[in-house]
């Protein structure tokens, strides 16, 4: 037996606590989630069950007294919750997003917010406003310093857990100020607010996650202690932009869970038909897309620790790519199922639910266009970095998934990746290393060829990007196209490097046919960049997919047992 990929140790423990979701007697069962969705009821009992296991501690960095050793651990734990139900993952996981701003502040605010979270208080994140959406700079909620207190006034809308949450992290404009340094992040604890100084807004009825508390909150001179402000006055927007780098990365966990849920359902609903050529091809595409999401999200999570200065662009690429491709994955599986996806059987109901639920992941923390815009802004820096490759061994830590990461240092996150991204800068060295390996081991030739193709695409992208003029305020369409290409090439490069740095390590099963010749990389890159994919690679992937589904294992590059597979 291989050693567990470290984050999967926690995941298996949580699975053991939660039990088989197909068993209607367990608290967090599929049946319960469907029932609550139909009633548009918040999954309070399920969230309490997560609290009992200690999930809230994973929303607090270990350095602040919590259990979150790395973002990588948090990502995969959220994925485990999301694979059962996205409403629960979003409703419970929102506390991570609400709390995250505090980790950029001083010890006092860190301690205060950690205390709330560890006590199980849901924390929400009040960023958006009815009139301004993702345009945070236009925000009108104000904070004014009077009589030794901060006073909040204005309305935040479409806020997850605004009503249910005990505390809200509010992005507010300092009264009378303009510009990017005119904002504060202030934690408003409802328990400490004077009566009549706030009111929650009605729950919005939504397409999916129907039980979730999507509402809003309005403040009228609500007094908040001075100590509840994060960082220095006027640094709120910068805090939020850094915090978004962490939350955008974590959002990929929601997609990983949603994609897995849909893929497992499709396999079950198809039954013996799954092996028919057309169905097999579609299922394999979905599996490769899912593994691509797993790899790129995991590398991004490690980037938060190992290359934090790059996370501004890496998190945007992941947040753009993973929800988008997971929505497409679910849609294509629906096409494969045909009218069977609509017949009202228990699995069809769940499939419909996960399809509806997952549509919201793209909207969190900036939709796909907002994230592309974040990449567009850095295209000149990314193009310039192409001329500064780094040696392969130097970059391998990011992609060596068996190696531990250092502690998170939020203060090292930057608003731009001034030196480009390591994954792309290391690609020439990685491709060369693979070429050398393939010269000695013929079975690696297809993989080396794929790596060479990814490198060629990366170089082409660099040339194209370098030729672009800096984007004006009204960003032209071709800049968005370059940003889309960047995200795809980044993900493909991450796949190549993860194989190179991780194959043969302890978490990889020695007999896993996907790893031996890099079959999974060949298929993942095929899906990302349209490169050819050979039948032996497909066969290896099919063997793994069917075995993982049959044996109740997580659909992953690494072994991980799920509750339905038996935890003994």
């Amino acid at each position, binding site marked *: 037996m291989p050693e567990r990929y470290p984050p999967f140790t926690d995941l298996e423990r949580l699975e053991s606590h939660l039990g088989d979701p197909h068993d209607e007697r367990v608290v967090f069962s599929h049946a319960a989630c469907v029932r609550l969705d139909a009633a548009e009821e918040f999954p309070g009992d399920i969230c309490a069950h997560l609290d009992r296991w200690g999930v809230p501690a994973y929303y607090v960095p270990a350095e602040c007294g919590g259990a979150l050793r790395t973002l990588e651990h948090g990502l995969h734990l959220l994925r485990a919750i999301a694979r059962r139900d996205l409403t629960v993952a979003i409703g419970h996981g929102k506390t991570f997003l609400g709390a995250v701003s505090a980790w950029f502040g001083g010890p006092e605010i860190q301690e205060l917010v950690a205390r709330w979270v560890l006590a199980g208080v849901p924390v929400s994140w009040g960023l958006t406003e009815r009139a301004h959406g*993702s345009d945070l700079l236009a925000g009108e909620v104000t904070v004014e310093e009077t009589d030794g207190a901060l006073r909040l006034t204005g309305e935040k809308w479409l806020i997850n857990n605004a009503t249910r949450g005990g505390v809200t992290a509010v992005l507010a404009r300092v009264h009378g100020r303009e510009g990017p340094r005119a904002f504060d992040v202030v934690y408003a604890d409802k328990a400490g607010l004077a009566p009549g100084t706030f009111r929650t807004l009605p729950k919005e009825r939504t397409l999916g996650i129907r039980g979730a508390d999507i509402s809003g909150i309005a403040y009228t001179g609500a007094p908040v202690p001075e100590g509840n402000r994060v960082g220095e006055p006027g640094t709120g927007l910068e805090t939020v932009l850094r915090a978004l780098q962490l939350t955008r990365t974590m959002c990929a966990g929601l997609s990983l869970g949603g994609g897995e849920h849909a893929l497992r359902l499709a396999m079950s609903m198809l039954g013996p038909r799954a092996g028919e050529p057309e169905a097999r091809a579609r299922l394999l595409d979905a599996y490769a897309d899912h593994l691509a999401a797993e790899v790129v999200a995991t590398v991004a999570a490690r980037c938060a620790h190992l290359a934090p200065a790059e996370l501004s662009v890496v998190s945007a690429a992941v947040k753009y790519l993973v929800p988008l491709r997971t929505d497409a994955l679910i849609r294509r599986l629906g096409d494969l199922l045909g*009218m069977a996806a609509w*017949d009202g059987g228990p699995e069809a109901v769940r499939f*419909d639910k996960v399809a509806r639920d997952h549509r919201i992941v793209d909207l969190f923390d900036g939709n796909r266009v907002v994230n592309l815009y974040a990449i567009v802004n850095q295209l000149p820096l990314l193009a310039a970095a192409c001329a500064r490759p780094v040696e392969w061994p130097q970059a391998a830590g990011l992609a060596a998934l068996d190696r531990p990461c250092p502690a998170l240092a939020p203060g090292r996150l930057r608003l731009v990746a001034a030196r480009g991204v390591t994954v792309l800068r290391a690609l020439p060295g990685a491709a060369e290393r693979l070429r050398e390996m393939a010269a000695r081991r013929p079975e690696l030739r297809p993989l080396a060829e794929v790596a060479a193709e990814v490198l060629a695409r990366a170089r082409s992208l660099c040339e194209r990007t370098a030729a672009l003029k800096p984007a004006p305020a009204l960003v032209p*369409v071709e800049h968005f196209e370059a940003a889309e290409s960047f995200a795809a090439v980044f993900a493909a490069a991450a796949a190549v490097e993860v194989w190179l740095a991780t194959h043969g390590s302890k978490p990889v099963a020695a007999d896993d046919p996907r790893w031996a010749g890099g079959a999974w990389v060949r298929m993942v890159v095929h899906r990302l960049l349209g490169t050819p994919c050979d039948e032996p690679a497909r066969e290896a992937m099919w063997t793994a997919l069917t075995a993982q589904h049959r044996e109740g294992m997580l659909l992953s590059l690494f072994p991980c047992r799920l509750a339905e597979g038996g935890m003994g």
Partner: protein
Amino acid sequence: MRAAGSLAAWMPGGAGPPQSVEYMRALRPLFRRDSAAGMSLLGAVVRPAVAARMAAGQEVFDEVGAHVTGGAECAYADEGVTAEARDGRIRLYGRGVPVLNGARGSLLVAVVRSAGAPWLAVADGTGTPRTRGIGCDAVDLDGVPVRVRAPLPGADPPYVVSGALIAGGAVGGVDDALRTVLRFALSRELYGTTVARLPHARGLLAGAYADLLIADALARAAVTADAPGAGAATWAATRLLTGILRDLATLLGARFYLREGPYAGFGAHWRALRALRAACGDPRRCTPGAIPPAAELAALAGHPPPLPPGVSVVSRLSHLDAEVRTPLAPDAADPLLRDLTARLESGVSLDLDPTPVDTHTPIPPDRGDDQGDMS
């Protein structure tokens, strides 16, 4: 709709396919107001009527025709129904899925595929156990006697022909969705300007308009073409229409996800038309060989809509199933947007045959868990 005689083409005495373009167009005002109601016609009327017309049996044709023209609805089971002879009668068994409009249909029209060539059975649909579905119901059959029956021609033409009609009608629903999002984009301020001035948004809006015109051309071709062209055109039209809705949802942002409020009508169309790909554009039934390349699909469109330089029917049909469609560049987007905005302001439809529309279309009320309920 029925009072206007739009169903007459498919009923006894009607001319059949030659009138189908008119019927398809007649469905559009209904879809514009409520796509769920439009989709419900698929199972209640259109599919059983088309199947009855195509079946080789006058009794079947007469019975379904009398039922439908009398204002009643059918329940149409497409898969899962078998038949056996017992007690001197042919009886139906199995779980019929999907029973489009199964909740209300009092006449059960079922395709039986148990052995040999498929045939159409007509039976009393009252009293059979129904399972409430997402967009359709299932019906459990345990010996329901067949009243009349008739063989169906091969290659599944009832699915393709009725699917083409409904997909063509759905152009009306997507027309209304595009109208809604254009109004939003023209009025919504973001980053110091309106959404409609952002190049990415302009490219998506213009692309949606181009795709709507192409979908209309394909649907018109589909309802008059022979298989397999009809199937391929329908398949492509359903992909275009659902792709438009995805792009428009991106533009609408979080409001797309809300079932109430000023843009709830968009979400109602989105929910209702989610089933369009499976109900009308299933590739296994529309293009059972292989999906034709974009150039062949473009040729099926017959008379291509007028498009500006920089955008072609082939290019729009080249990436129908891509995760994301590239927004049109300004030289292609600007003329399309001018035309689109002019049509919005003058209150005419956005399809190939601009006709006046009610510019104050009421937003369909939220239906709770309807999810594009076809009943």
